[in-house]
């Protein structure tokens, strides 16, 4: 459930909710970190739930000694009213058997707070791509029918690629197609639930593998930026250029949070040499 930091809680009617799926490479979560850190979003509350592994730490977006001592927990909500944007960041994995209860709690909050739409940032195992998916852009999108009407055309203009469905029974019956997002965590469940509830949801995902996923996070957040225009990109606005060919300068526009230090371990013991 959503618990505000103070007072009765902000009015989120008409806002866009941006959130990550806990998925391969944690790409969605890293991308969300970039959004919160760059836009200097304010924390407005917590998503208090028994579905995520508990964790606490000091402010991951600290920029000075003063703001470094604010406590952060595993699921927090930030907002930027000027862009009618509200962001949920999830910082720990799901507890077993809690996917469905979390989806229900989340979607019920989306409905009660009257958010206009939800954008889910996610990722999928790169090794499970088929021959066609190996070529071209590794970025994909999905829209629920409710949102298709509103922005489907814009996606066409951006020349984005929709996530392909795969055969339910490959080799036996290629006619029946299903949505399959391996490594996507709750992505598929949230998406299908949103479809059936008539919620406006978009999924933006990137094919990737575990490793140093910072470049994947940048790719995903730039993809998002093509649509939402959260920051001005230095690269060309021409839609003829695919995300991979974009001028790298855009990467430096996003601010890496201080918590991304030491992602691959501590310093080396001097006795090693």
């Amino acid at each position, binding site marked *: 459930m959503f618990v505000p930091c103070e007072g009765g809680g902000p009015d989120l009617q008409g806002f866009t909710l941006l959130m990550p799926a806990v998925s391969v490479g944690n790409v969605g979560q890293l991308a969300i970190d970039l959004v919160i850190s760059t836009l200097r979003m304010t924390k407005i509350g917590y998503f208090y739930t028994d579905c995520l592994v508990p964790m606490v730490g000091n402010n991951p977006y600290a920029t000075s000694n003063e703001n470094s001592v604010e*406590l952060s927990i595993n699921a927090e909500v930030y907002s930027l009213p000027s862009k009618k944007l509200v962001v949920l960041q999830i910082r720990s994995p799901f507890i077993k058997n809690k996917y469905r209860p979390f989806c229900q709690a989340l979607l019920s909050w989306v409905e009660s707070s009257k958010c206009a739409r939800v954008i889910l940032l996610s990722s999928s195992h790169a090794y499970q791509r088929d021959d066609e998916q190996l070529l071209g852009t590794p970025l994909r999108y999905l829209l629920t029918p409710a949102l298709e009407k509103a922005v489907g055309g814009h996606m066409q203009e951006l020349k984005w690629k929709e996530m392909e469905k795969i055969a339910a029974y490959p080799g036996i019956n290629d006619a029946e197609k299903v949505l399959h997002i*391996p*490594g996507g965590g709750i992505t598929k*469940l949230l998406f299908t639930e949103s479809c059936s509830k008539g919620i406006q949801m978009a999924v933006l995902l990137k094919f990737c593998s575990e490793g140093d996923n910072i470049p994947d996070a940048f790719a995903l957040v730039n993809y998002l930026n093509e649509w939402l225009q959260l920051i001005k990109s230095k690269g060309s606005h021409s839609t003829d250029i695919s995300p991979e060919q974009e001028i790298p300068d855009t990467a430096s526009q996003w601010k890496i949070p201080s918590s991304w230090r030491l992602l691959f371990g*501590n310093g080396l013991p001097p006795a090693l040499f």
Partner: protein
Amino acid sequence: MRGALRGRGRGRAAMATFFGEVVAAPSRAGVDDDEEEAAGEALEETPEDREIRRRVEEKREVAVRWALPAGEAAPGVAPEPLPCSRFVVAVGHNAAAFLSSFILDSTCWEVVGAVKLWNEWCRTSNTTNVLPTDSFCLFYRLISDPTVLLCQCSCYVAEDQQFQWLEKVFGHIRKEGLQVTILSTCPVADYKTQESTLTLPSPFLKALKTKEFKEQVCCPLLEQPNIVRDLPAAVLSYCQVWQIPAVLYQCYTDVIKLDTVTIEAFKPLLSSETLKNLVKDVSESTKSLKKLLTTNENHNNIYI
């Protein structure tokens, strides 16, 4: 049989090494691909699967038993929440032993509650007369000031039980005027720092506090990108969300078992507002620590 009997595995990504072999690598995202299928299959669970799942959940349920004061509510009626001004929670053997050595004794404190739980790592002891190396979770109240509560939790509370523990324990405590102190330990190898952890003088203390906590902390705050997990994190998160002043003292140590050096690393807390009036006689503490040492030694001695 699917569903409840499925093992807890991390998501498996296959990757090819330079030699061409395919290696199963666990996913950092903790995504269990089976979970995705299970979520869809949950609707297709057989009654048998459902029954197994229900029995496993029942076995893993956290039961909290509170001692009812004489003359109070009849059985079957929910007991009144306990008024509480200070709640000190010690998680893990060393933190629990710190309280045993420096604070607790049988004359000033009485047992008012116990947690009974089971998971793959431990089963709580059935008695209140526990050894420092046992797995237990007991609640004590200061006889001279019944609003002071202490908890020693040396059993491991699994991630699917932490929320239950929280709700059942804090559900029985009044939140007005409450302040919480949590003591915990973890391996120094988990501490993220620019230098190598081998050169760090361990054990050492680091603190995290909620927004409402205004008192002085007894050690430096835990720097990013370090985080705290498990029950201590669950308790501190609860306090942050529900605006309860709370502080967590995490002791980073290179000894996993019961160890007097680690226990003594918590000593700066004895001068804190919360604990300074509860400290035992120095001679008593020394006796308790010594006793701890001998109990520990007996368990660890396999050679004559």
